[in-house]
C-alpha cells in the first residue's frame, strides 16, 4: 500500500494499515540513526517550516533533527519572537510562511484544531506537532514503534496510561493508535482528569481511578507528565498526586514483570515518576526519543513526496 494522506493532523483518521505502513517506513530510518554518518540527501532542496506557537524543546529539536538528517532545510518560527505577539492572526502568519515556499509546515499550537484550521487554508502539507489537548500524532506513532520494537508486536496488548488524561494530547493519540490494534486500554488518574466520555472515542477503553486496580496485567505502562501549565486551576495538590499516582518501583511491580515503562517527556522526577522507575531496565524513555526522530523522518519523507508516487512502500 502507499500513504495517501496529504497532512498528518491526528492518528484518529489513520487506519491500521496506514499506521503499519508508517511504522515500517520509520524502521527504515531507525537504521540510519545507528550509523556514524547520519545525513541523507533524500529531501535535499526541500524545506520545512517549524511553526511552534507554543513552547517546545524536544519536539521542535526532534523535527529539526529529522529534517536535517533527510537533507531538508528548516525555517523556525517561535511564538515568543513571532508576529502573533503583535496581533497578527494565525491565518495571516501561516500564509506569510507559505509565501516563502516551504514544502511542509510542522505546527504546534495551544489551541486544539489549529493545525486543521491551517490545513484547510494552505496548499502545502501540514504536520500536527501537538495541538492543545487534542492530538500529538507523531508521539502516538513513536510510542507504537517503541512498543513494537520491544515486545515484537502491537496487537492485543494491555496498556495502562496514568495521569491527566483529560488534558493529554499524548493520551488521545495513543488511544487512537493502540485501539486499532485491538489493545485493551486502561486510563488511570484522579477522577476529575478522567472524562467518562473518553470511553466513547475508541473501542476497548476502561477507566480506573485506582492505580492498584489499573496496573495488574499491564504489558505497557505509560506515565504522563503532570501538565500544570495546561490546567486552568491547580485542581489537585502535588502531594496528593504523588501519594496516589506517582509511579514507584512497588507500584510498577503490580504490572507484568516485563512491562514496558514509557513517558513522553519531559519527566518530572519525584512528581509523576520515581527516579528508580525512570532509570529501570523496564524504562524505554530514551528509546522513545530516538524513535521520535525516525518517525518524524518517515512522516516528513512521505508528506513531502520523498517517495515517487506508487513506489512509496518500504
Amino acid at each position, binding site marked *: 500500500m502507499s500513504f495517501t494522506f496529504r497532512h498528518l493532523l491526528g492518528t484518529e483518521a489513520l487506519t491500521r494499515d496506514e499506521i503499519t505502513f508508517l511504522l515500517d517506513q520509520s524502521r527504515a530510518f531507525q537504521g540510519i540513526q545507528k550509523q556514524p554518518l547520519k545525513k541523507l540527501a533524500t529531501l535535499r532542496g526541500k524545506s520545512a517550516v517549524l511553526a511552534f506557537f507554543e513552547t517546545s524543546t524536544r519536539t521542535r529539536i526532534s523535527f529539526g533533527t529529522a529534517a536535517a538528517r533527510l537533507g531538508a532545510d528548516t525555517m523556525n518560527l517561535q511564538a515568543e519572537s513571532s508576529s502573533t505577539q503583535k496581533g497578527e*492572526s494565525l491565518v495571516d502568519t501561516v500564509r506569510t510562511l507559505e509565501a516563502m515556499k516551504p514544502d511542509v509546515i510542522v505546527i504546534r499550537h495551544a*489551541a*486544539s*484544531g489549529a493545525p486543521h484550521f491551517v490545513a484547510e487554508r494552505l496548499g502545502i502539507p501540514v504536520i500536527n506537532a501537538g*495541538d*492543545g489537548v*487534542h492530538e500529538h500524532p507523531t508521539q502516538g506513532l513513536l510510542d507504537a514503534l517503541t512498543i513494537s520494537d520491544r515486545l515484537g508486536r502491537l496487537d492485543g496488548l494491555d496498556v495502562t496510561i496514568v495521569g491527566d488524561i483529560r488534558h493529554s494530547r499524548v493520551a488521545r493519540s495513543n488511544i487512537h493508535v493502540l485501539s486499532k490494534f485491538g489493545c485493551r486500554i486502561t486510563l488511570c488518574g484522579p477522577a476529575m482528569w478522567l472524562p467518562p*466520555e473518553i470511553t*466513547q*472515542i475508541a473501542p476497548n477503553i476502561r477507566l480506573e481511578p485506582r492505580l492498584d486496580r489499573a496496573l495488574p496485567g499491564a504489558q505497557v505502562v505509560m506515565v504522563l507528565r503532570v501538565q500544570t501549565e495546561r490546567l486552568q486551576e491547580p485542581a489537585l495538590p502535588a502531594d496528593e498526586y504523588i501519594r496516589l499516582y506517582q509511579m514507584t518501583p512497588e507500584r510498577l511491580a503490580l504490572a507484568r514483570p516485563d512491562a514496558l515503562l514509557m513517558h513522553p517527556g519531559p519527566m518530572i522526577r519525584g512528581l509523576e515518576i520515581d527516579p528508580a522507575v525512570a532509570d529501570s531496565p523496564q524504562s524505554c524513555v530514551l528509546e522513545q526519543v530516538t524513535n521520535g526522530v525516525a518517525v518524524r523522518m518517515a512522516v516528513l519523507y512521505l508528506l513531502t513526496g520523498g517517495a515517487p508516487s506508487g513506489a512509496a512502500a518500504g
Partner: protein
Amino acid sequence: MLLIHNGRVLDPSKSFDGPADVLIEGERIARVGTKIEAPGAERLDASGLVVAPGFIDLHCHLREPGNEPAETIESGTRAAASGGFTAVCCMPNTQPVNDNASVTRFILDRAAAGACVRVWPIGAASKGSKGEGLAEIAAMKDAGIVAVTDDGRPIATAKLLRQVMEYARSLDLPVIEHSEDASLFAGGVMREGPTSVRLGLRGVPAAAESICVARDVQICALTGARLHVAHMSAKDSLELVRQAKRRGLPVTCEVTPHHFTLTDEDVVYDARYKMNPPLVSRDDREALLAGLADGSVDAIATDHAPHTQASKEVEFDRAPFGITGFETALGLALEALVHSGRAPLARVVELFTSGPARVLGKTRTIAEGEPADLTLFSTEHPWTFRAAESASKSRNTPFDGRSFRGAPMATVVAGRIVWQRKS
C-alpha cells in the same frame, strides 16, 4: 391601499386558519374577509402562501452602535425582513452598551432613518451590563425599550437580579436572562460530551445553564416579575421552566433554530459552530423539539449574532461566540417541526408571532384596525440559502448552502411591502 388576496390566513391568536383576503389602508388592516373587492388597490397575490401575523424576533444583535463592520441597523433589518421578520428586539451589548436613554434614542433614530422592519430595543439591566449598579431602566423605558437584560452574561448576582426584577416589575418590563453559571462555564467553547473530549475542546456542562435557570426562577417567585429565559438549550432548564409555569409563575422561554437543528456532534474546528449557549446533545435537542411542539416553549428566537470574517476566521478557542440567523429561521423551523410531523403549522406560526408578542405583553393578530404587519410564506418553496447573498453584512453561519423546503416570500411592515423573494 394594498390587497393581499388568494392567501391562506393563519392567525394562531384567533385559532383561524382558512382562505381570506386582507385589505390594508395606510399602516393598518382595514378588512379581513373573502373575495374583498378593492378597485385601485395595489394587489399582492398570495396564492399558495400562508398569510401570517408579522413575525417577531425576540433576540438579535444588530451591532450598531460600535461594530458596524459586522452589522448595522440598516443591513440587519434587511436580513430580518428577508427572514420574514417584521419586528426585531436588539440586545443591548453594543458599544456603548444600551444602558441609558440616549443610546436607546440613537438606536431608534437610526431605525427610523434606515430600518425596514420595526426595531424594539432591549435595555441593559445593569450599568454597562457589568452586574454592579442598575441601568437607567425607567428612562430607557420612556425612550422605547421593551425589556431588560445583561445578555451575553447572566445578571451577575442573585441580589442584583432581585433588585432588577423588583424594579422591572414596577415598570411592567420583562427581564430576559442569559442563564449561565460563570464558574462552570469558565473557558468553555462547546458543550461537554464525547465530541468535546474527542476534539480536545473545553466543554461546558448543561448544568451551567440549568443551575442559573433554577436561580432565576426562584427570584421570579420571590419578586413576581416576568422572567424570560433566553436561548434556552438544556433539557433540565426546560423542565425548570415547565415546573415554574405549572406553579403559575410568569416565566417564558425561547429556543433558537440552531439549538433545535444541530447538536454538539456537528461541531468541527470551524468557528461557525461556536455559539453560546453551545450546540447541545441529541437528548437536549429532542427535549427542545418536544417543548416547542407541546407549548412549553413560548418563542423561536434567532440570536442573530453577526461577526466579521476576520474575527471569526481564527482558532476555535479564540473566535467570538455566535452565528447569523434571520434568514434561515423559518426554513429550519418548518424542517424540524412541520415537515417532520412533530407540530402543526399553526404552532410554528405561534412561535414566531403571538408567542413572542405575549412575552413582551403585546398582541399579534390579523384583524381590522391592527397594525398591518404580515409575513407571507410558503411551506413548500424549495430554495438554497447562500450566505454570500445574505442581506446581513456577516457570513458566519453553519447553514450556508443548506437547502430548504418552505421559505418566507414577502414581508409587510406598517402596510408596506418591505421585502419580496425574487426567486
